[in-house]
């Protein structure tokens, strides 16, 4: 089939004719690619802010009795903002809003998202939320309640002032953003697939976004309810979580984690999707066990809703609940294992090229398994009693997030940047970025396992001197990953100043999804005429 099949604007020439103004293109956009670009830009900004905060944190923790952060409240506010920004404004916007917007319509052969205006509004809600979360950090004493927002600390008695209100409302705004996005993705995927693109032919990234969108749809409103009740407790005299009026602080924990656990899969499922594409492309092999991959994601999504109280093993829940939630949690390892082994089987027998995206993908697989394995340790309620809220937990979730989800973001970035910008990244600098990041983050987070086992609690700006050694190592690692981020910015600089013109399918035969049939960069309206799939 020749490329004339696709309505090809020839990207550059046709656009020069009716170039939209800056405001029309970026403030009023109804185009999924431009909105995707906006999301990715926002994610990079959030990555800089959240990453900058983490550098500050590691600088403080480098030595005991350090005074970079002036007091515990300031520390708590920084930790809270770091956690929230990384989750809601870096990982989710990059994976779902960014890559999801760019590639879901393209992969299913649709001209755009189902509700383009709503799509734009999702983005602006995110921006408004970001303003609020920053206000929550800088206004007054700062909101030092942890990203988990547990009352009574979040009540007005213990967190007076407006900063915590800003933080809570920032979650409302980000939540609305995600919710509208989720509705949009589901409607798009269910309704706008090109003729012949059956559900069971859908690329895995699309499946990943579909499952993720359902998780968002069902989980976010519960968080919104919990946050609403918190705001009412703070400002309007109710006692949902306030023991003084008969309220139950543990209720909040249930509601939060009923959202919070699906949330962690919201962050990792799109990552799974990206990794599947990258692994298949660079092994030059189709995905191994496609159906297993699809239904593993569905299973993970479903199980994600029935394990929430594994975050509450020490909140005084009953023995039977602890046993139930432990066992249910352990079950998740099975579908996740199916995914891990299927990736390896996809590579097996392949002709693998280790370009930068593939390096990040292989790094992802290995590091995610490390983080998953420590997750299994934590899932044992009997062990969690020892490890809960200490640095072993911090190590666990940074392995699945900072080394998992973020690695997938980078894999996707290097994989698709040519398609998005029309220019290829410099391979040497990409690889340098990978290796510095890989060494840096492992150096940062592996020692945290030791700190945790030895009993170092989280959210501490100062600690007993015995913990100094590993903290020092960890800080050094963090600074290395900070430097690696500078390498990444240099890569971006090179991409945007590059003059090289790219082919439609610059990865060659291994790349088989529909985004590879259109020019690079993809034209403004990808499919004016939708492709008919065999």
């Amino acid at each position, binding site marked *: 089939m020749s490329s004339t099949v696709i309505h090809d604007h020839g990207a550059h020439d046709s656009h020069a004719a009716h170039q939209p103004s800056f405001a029309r293109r970026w403030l009023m956009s109804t185009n999924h690619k431009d909105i995707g670009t906006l999301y990715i830009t926002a994610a990079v900004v959030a990555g800089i802010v959240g990453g900058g905060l983490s550098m500050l944190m590691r600088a403080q923790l480098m030595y005991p009795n350090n005074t970079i952060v002036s007091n515990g409240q300031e520390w708590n506010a920084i930790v809270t903002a770091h956690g929230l920004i990384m989750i809601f404004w870096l990982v989710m916007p990059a994976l779902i809003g960014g890559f999801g917007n760019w590639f879901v319509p393209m992969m299913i052969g649709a001209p*755009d998202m189902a509700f383009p205006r709503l799509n734009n509004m999702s983005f*602006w809600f995110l921006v*408004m939320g970001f303003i609020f979360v920053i206000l929550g950090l800088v206004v007054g004493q700062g909101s030092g309640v942890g990203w988990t927002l547990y009352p009574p600390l979040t009540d007005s008695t213990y967190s007076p002032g407006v900063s915590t209100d800003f933080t809570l409302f920032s979650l409302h705004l980000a939540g609305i953003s995600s919710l509208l996005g989720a509705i949009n993705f589901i*409607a798009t995927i*269910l309704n706008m697939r090109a003729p012949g693109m059956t559900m069971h032919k859908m690329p895995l990234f699309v499946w990943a976004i579909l499952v993720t969108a359902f998780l968002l749809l069902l989980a976010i409103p519960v968080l919104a309810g919990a946050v609403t009740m918190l705001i009412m407790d703070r400002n309007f005299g*109710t006692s949902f979580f306030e023991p003084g009026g008969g309220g139950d602080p543990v209720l909040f924990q249930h509601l939060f984690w009923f959202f919070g656990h699906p949330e962690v899969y919201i962050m990792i499922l799109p990552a799974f999707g990206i990794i599947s594409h990258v692994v298949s492309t660079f092994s030059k092999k189709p995905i191994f066990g496609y159906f297993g991959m699809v239904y593993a994601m569905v299973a993970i999504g479903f199980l994600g809703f029935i394990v929430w109280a594994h975050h509450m093993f020490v909140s005084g829940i009953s023995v039977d609940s602890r046993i139930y939630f432990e066992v249910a949690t352990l079950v998740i390892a099975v579908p996740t294992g199916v995914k891990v082994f299927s990736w390896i089987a996809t590579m097996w027998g392949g002709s693998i090229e280790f370009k930068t995206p593939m390096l990040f993908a292989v790094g992802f697989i290995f590091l995610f398994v490390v983080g998953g394995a420590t997750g299994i340790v934590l899932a044992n309620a009997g062990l969690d009693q020892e490890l809960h809220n200490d640095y072993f937990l911090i190590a666990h979730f940074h392995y699945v997030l900072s080394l998992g989800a973020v690695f997938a973001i980078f894999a996707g970035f290097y994989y698709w940047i040519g398609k998005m910008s029309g220019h290829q990244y410099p391979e040497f600098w990409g690889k340098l970025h990978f290796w510095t990041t890989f060494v840096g983050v492992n150096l940062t987070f592996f020692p945290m396992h030791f700190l945790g086992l030895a009993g170092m609690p989280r959210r501490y700006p100062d600690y007993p001197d015995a913990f100094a050694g590993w903290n020092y190592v960890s800080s050094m690692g963090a600074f290395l990953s900070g430097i690696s981020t500078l390498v990444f910015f240099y890569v971006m600089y090179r991409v945007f100043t590059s003059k090289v013109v790219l082919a439609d399918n610059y990865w060659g035969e291994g790349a*088989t999804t529909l985004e590879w049939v259109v020019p690079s960069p993809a034209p403004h309206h990808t499919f004016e005429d939708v492709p*008919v799939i065999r």
Partner: protein
Amino acid sequence: MSGTVHTAKSQIRGTVPHQYHLVDPSFLPLIGAASAMLVAAGIIFAAHFSNYIVLIIGVLSAVTTMFFWWTSVVHEGAAPGVHTTITRIGMRYGMALFITSEVMFFVSFFWAYFNYFFFPSHMGVAYKAVWPPQGITTIDPFAIPLFNTMVLLLSGTTITWAHHALLENDKKNLVLGLAVTVLLGITFLCGQGYEYTHSPFLFYHGGIFPSVFFIATGFHGFHVVVGTAFLIVCLVRAMKNQFSPQQHFGFEAAAWYWHFVDVVWLFLFVCIYYFGRSAIVAG
């Protein structure tokens, strides 16, 4: 992906023109999100500094945004060939999914209620483990609440009446059915308003029972307000002949929403008013 297809291009057999609605660039999303931020900031300012100006500006601009947004949707719907069949199916998905998310919102409030209803000991050691809490007199479920149940159930039938009339292109009955439904919605709200102002327990600093009671019923009441407004819009549009038996998604969405509000009420009535009533019932 399943191993049979090996290059991207060989999957494509040809092309067909697309049937979707690609909308023009618009400032409304940015303004809408900014208004929502103003509303949020306004609530904070109102609560902390008794400053209501931001809130008022925010609400006004949010309402204005919605007005213009939906007006343009209505205009697009009226233009030929814009809201194609497949586009309308997409809108149905959108509405159904939105209602699903609303259901989960209510789940969080019901969860809060059941947390105390089934486990009164969760109220803490300072309280006797009984529900409703000691000292709380509840509202008689068979007074206004039962009346309101009847009102809502009736309104569910009148909206169906309107729907059938619409399908048969019977404008008179459509308008009549809608008007009665709107009236019933307003009746419900009046009943609820009376009940709130005469409730035997206070919302502000009243402890856990009023908290869970008012948030669940209040959030529902808010949905009735929204639903009634939605129905009023439909009523106006019906009078302007904007619905046809073939194309009336706006009406359908309103009807779905109304039924959803209705079902939530039944759960509220049974779980909170009936099962959550105290032994001695006040009028």
